[in-house]
């Protein structure tokens, strides 16, 4: 055996020169959604105190309203977070949510004829989530087996789910006559709406899935380097299918809760929420190139959008300003992200 290199000099590392403390800009970039939230709440508080002499933030009614207002886009955004971290995008969630809302309404009504009312609600919600999984399954198969880019595949499904939802609804909204369904959407316990409690529990479950399980870990890996993930033996096709089913089922839950809130299923329920949910994920710190993002970031991103939309109405600004405000926040958010990347890149080149 070759002895010519026996005194193999180890790699004495100046290895760890980069310090463990983060730069201030990295901190800001990471927590930017929460920072936006604080700034916005402060701004609306001052605005509302000065203009109307009432508090914006210290109002139970406002807090409840914003929380309820944020639930539907947040549920969509949670599924979207998983998809965006993997490097994909799901444009179909808005109408998947509409489809689910209509299914929830029909299923609650029909099963209510044969089953006790509370059980009919359960049937309604479960059918909405299960039916929503179908467009997700198709998305996943198109993207993983037929190699269709996520943007195109889910755009196609956007159309299909939209048509299916309107057909199923008969072109109108489907009212639900079930007191328990209405209570699910509008009731509260100790002042906290059921919708908010369900959403919080769901957020915790999804945070666990993303941060503590193999599914979550593989999702990050695929988003960062799909080839590396494949070489490591991860079944990427299978993962992608489950990923889009998950996203669609989040939309399904959103649709069911939306129907409960309005005691009616409307096909267009999720239409305006598609861009909001993508915006929430981006404001929350995810990169559209994949590989980064978190559930709690998305929660903050959703709250930022909800506060802007609710707050502008509260201080009596024409509603069209909402679009401009949300757009500006998205752009600032992406700018901070870019700045941080450039900063980090420069440090690494040293």
């Amino acid at each position, binding site marked *: *055996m*070759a002895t*010519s*290199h*026996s005194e*193999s*000099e*180890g*790699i*004495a*590392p100046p*290895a*760890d020169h*980069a310090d*463990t403390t983060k730069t201030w800009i990295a901190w800001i970039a990471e927590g930017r959604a929460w920072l936006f939230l604080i700034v916005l709440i402060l701004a609306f508080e001052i605005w509302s105190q000065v203009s109307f002499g009432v508090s914006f933030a210290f109002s139970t009614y406002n807090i409840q309203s914003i929380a309820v207002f944020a639930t539907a886009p947040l549920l969509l955004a949670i599924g979207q977070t998983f998809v965006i971290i993997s490097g994909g995008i799901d444009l179909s969630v808005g109408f998947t949510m509409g489809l689910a809302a209509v299914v929830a309404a029909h299923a609650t009504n029909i099963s209510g004829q044969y089953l006790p009312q509370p059980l009919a609600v359960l049937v309604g919600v479960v059918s909405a989530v299960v039916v929503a999984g179908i467009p997700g399954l198709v998305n996943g198969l198109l993207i993983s087996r037929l190699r269709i880019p996520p943007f195109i595949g889910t755009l196609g499904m956007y159309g299909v789910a939209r048509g299916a939802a309107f057909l199923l609804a008969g072109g109108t909204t489907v009212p639900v006559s079930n007191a328990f369904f209405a209570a699910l959407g509008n009731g509260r316990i100790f002042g906290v709406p059921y919708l908010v409690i369900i959403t919080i529990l769901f957020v915790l479950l999804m945070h*666990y899935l993303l941060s*503590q*399980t*193999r599914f979550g*870990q*593989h999702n*990050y*890996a695929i*988003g*960062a*380097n799909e*080839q*590396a*993930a494949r*070489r*490591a*033996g*991860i079944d990427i096709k299978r993962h992608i299918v489950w990923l889009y089913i998950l996203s669609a089922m989040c939309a399904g839950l959103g649709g069911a809760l939306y129907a409960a809130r309005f005691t009616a299923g409307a096909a267009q329920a999720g239409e305006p929420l598609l861009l909001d949910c993508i915006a929430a994920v981006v404001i929350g710190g995810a990169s559209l190139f994949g*590989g*980064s993002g978190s559930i709690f970031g998305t929660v903050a991103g959703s709250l930022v959008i909800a506060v802007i939309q609710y707050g502008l109405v509260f201080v009596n600004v024409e509603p069209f300003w909402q679009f401009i405000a949300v757009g500006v926040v998205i752009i600032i958010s992406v700018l901070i992200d870019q700045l941080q990347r450039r900063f980090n890149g420069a440090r*690494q080149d040293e």
Partner: protein
Amino acid sequence: MSKTDGNPPLLEIRNLSKYFGAVRALHDFSMEVRAGEVVAVAGDNGAGKTTMIKAVSGVYPPTAGEILLKGQPMHFSSPQDARKKGIETIYQDLALADNLTIGGNIFLGREPMTKAFGFLPVLDRKAMAEAARTTMSRLDFHVSRLNAPVSNFSGGQRQAVAIGRAVYWDAQILIMDEPTAALGVPEQRKVISLIHQLKAQGRGVIFISHNLQDIFAVSDRIIVLRRGILAGERKITETDHDEIVKLMVGGS
């Protein structure tokens, strides 16, 4: 230099051929790698180096010929299969997930789990970090930032992580495809010294490179491929740059 000591070689390739239709990418190629030996494979672009690696690492089946691991004939159905049997391939383009930690990369696809609160299955990040620390120190690479994503590390350090993964899973044969190509000069030197470590641990290394300087710094033997056939095999102590270049380009 290595002598035949009675034991079968770690890896033996016998009369391996790979044809793509009429194209003979590799023809009747044989080589062996013994424990603790670094064998360089050199050759111009299109000489068949990549074809040879892919056949050995299970990417595609050879048209003809045999691959033997410690004397046992092997048929790999996939790269995962080859990896399970102890052949790990390390690519030049750093096949790491940049957003995961060293431990996350070492265990990618086979993460250890533990139970939180006694019932909830969660990733065992502590075990991953601990394995990362011990593995990297076996390569004489000491890291304190086990919670940092590998994007924070330099190219050479990341190459060390890729090698560390192979070491952790106890690969006996490491195929390194241009492991220094993407790196700066000081980083290249680090990778070369990593290869010395692997050698000292008794593993076999197939080292593919364009860089003759690297080849002469680290290899025991050099095998030259030209247009899919074995153009020559030399002990590194008995040859020089000129001869190797002549073998690579052909002619006299």
